[in-house]
């Protein structure tokens, strides 16, 4: 069985190799800080395997995370000057390779889809080929590896250090933003443990007007969106808002359609995800990957759609779910 942990180790190993390269990169004015940050991230990725299955204490990992926060947050990371091709060379290379360049790029999604749809159903000797519940992650990882092989073959690139170096310069230009999605997941968990959800539910119950259907629907949807903006994740908002408004008021008191209210309510939460920096993997990571000056660029592009869709979702529940 191919386990997801193997891929986390592989990602950790990639971070460690890149960190070792960074430590020796004299074009990077902050090479020691960068190497420390990415090296620590690599170690944390591997060590996490034992934290996840409960066989190692989580406290040292917590300390490592706080150290990474300080390294990234106080500006100890930087980037070197990549040894790469310039625009003129790239245009010439593009003319030489032509559309063959798309083959490896399209291999990643293709393999990912094949893994999650087909390979996920395979099993050898009663044991699934891919670890249960990790098909998507494994598909992405296997897809990236196969695509790398295909890419090196198509582009007749023999040296593995070339893609590693190219990947490292992408990593350096993204910087610490890469760590942010994981940290926000941590914050969401701490909010939950500390009882932020219960408080928000209590406040929502207090402002709930009695017996007005439109107001109750709007409160449920807006509540989902606002709570998602705070937590960065509609999944965290759903149980709280459903317990506070959705179930007792919209379903029990006003007799709505359970499937309609719940499904569309969740989508109202997604409107919040579109506009919150807390959902870093959807909003801030793309900004970093696309090397935008304004890290809120994607949020600004999505905000009007999010507002309109919130209105649509309220209308859909109000008109069709009762």
């Amino acid at each position: 069985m191919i386990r997801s942990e193997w891929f986390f180790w592989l990602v950790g190993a990639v971070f460690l190799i890149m960190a070792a390269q960074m430590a020796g990169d004299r074009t990077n004015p902050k090479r020691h800080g960068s190497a420390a940050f990415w090296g620590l991230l690599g170690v944390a990725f591997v060590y996490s395997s034992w934290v996840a299955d409960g066989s190692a204490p989580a406290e040292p990992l917590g300390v490592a995370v706080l150290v990474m926060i300080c390294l990234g947050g106080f500006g100890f990371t930087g980037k070197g000057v990549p040894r790469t091709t310039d625009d003129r060379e790239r245009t010439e290379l593009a003319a030489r390779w032509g559309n063959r360049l798309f083959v490896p790029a399209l291999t990643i999604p293709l393999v990912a889809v094949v893994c999650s749809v087909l390979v996920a159903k395979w099993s050898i000797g009663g044991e699934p080929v891919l670890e249960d519940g990790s098909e998507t992650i494994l598909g992405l990882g296997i897809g990236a590896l196969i695509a790398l092989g295909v890419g090196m073959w198509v582009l007749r690139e023999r040296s593995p250090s070339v893609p590693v170096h190219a990947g490292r310069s992408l990593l350096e230009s993204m910087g610490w933003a890469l760590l942010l999605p994981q940290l926000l997941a941590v914050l969401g968990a701490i909010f939950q443990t500390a009882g932020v959800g219960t408080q928000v539910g209590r406040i929502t119950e207090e402002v709930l007007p009695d017996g007005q259907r439109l107001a109750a629907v709007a409160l449920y949807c807006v509540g989902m969106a606002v709570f998602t903006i705070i937590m960065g994740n509609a999944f965290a908002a759903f149980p709280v808002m459903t317990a506070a408004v959705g179930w007792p008021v919209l379903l029990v008191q006003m007799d709505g359609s359970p499937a309609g209210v719940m499904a569309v309510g969740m989508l109202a939460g997604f409107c919040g995800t579109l506009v919150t920096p807390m959902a870093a993997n959807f909003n801030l990571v793309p900004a970093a990957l696309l090397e935008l000056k304004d890290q809120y660029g994607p949020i600004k592009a999505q905000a009007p759609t999010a507002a309109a869709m919130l209105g649509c979702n309220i209308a859909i529940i109000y008109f069709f779910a009762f």
Partner: protein
Amino acid sequence: MVVLLGVVVVVLGFATRRNPLLVVGVAGIATGLLGELSPAEILRAFGDGFASSRSVTIFAITLPVIGLLERNGLQQQARTLIGKLGGLTTGRFLMLYLALRQLTAAFGLQSIGGPAQSVRPMIAPMAEAAAERRNGGRPLPEPVREKVRSHSSGADTVGLFFGEDCFLAIGSILLITGFVNSTYDTHLEPLSLALWAVPTAVCAFLVHGARLLRLDGTLERELAAYEAAHGTGNGAGHAARDAARISLTKDAATRTGTDTGRGADRASGTTGEGAE
């Protein structure tokens, strides 16, 4: 009520554009302390949270192959390809991608797109190339380029969010059935939830698709305004930009005078460092 102060820390931190890592770190510690967790429990929360959320960082494994393809001209080829399709404007192209993303996600193929897999290597360069053609083949001024890239990412995310819930076996549908069926002792079918997601998906395509079509007009106006303010793009503005680039990076000095922008971007440091 006092635990909500952690939320206030986050809102203030993001609003005043402090370094997001520090904002999240401080908010996490503060909320933990206010929620009466011990320091050891807070450390454990950070550690456990990191360990269980590693899957969101696994896209880093795609970076070597993307980097290899980019240094061999992937983005330039994406531009060439889109340049051959005459009628395809930025807005129309992104609308097509939105439709494709929604449909594939609705059939359970969420991993077909994403910022690392499709937007950076293919979608954003293609959208930029379509805009450059409207600009007479000249590179885009920075604010316009940022807008095009932001919308490339936006189309990907909106398409995913309002497509995936039409699929039965997606996390959010399973969360709803799991939570409702166990908490309230009732029975909800994933299929009926997925069907209820269809009207919203259609609305999302109409709303965001219309916005993307209108984007073409907006880009044209902004390009015209930029031309008016900075000359025709071959004159003073161009020289000033070239000069600025040389001051930003050593290797820019070795570049040729052709202005395609992207290489300079990378050197000028945008994401984390640039945002502070």
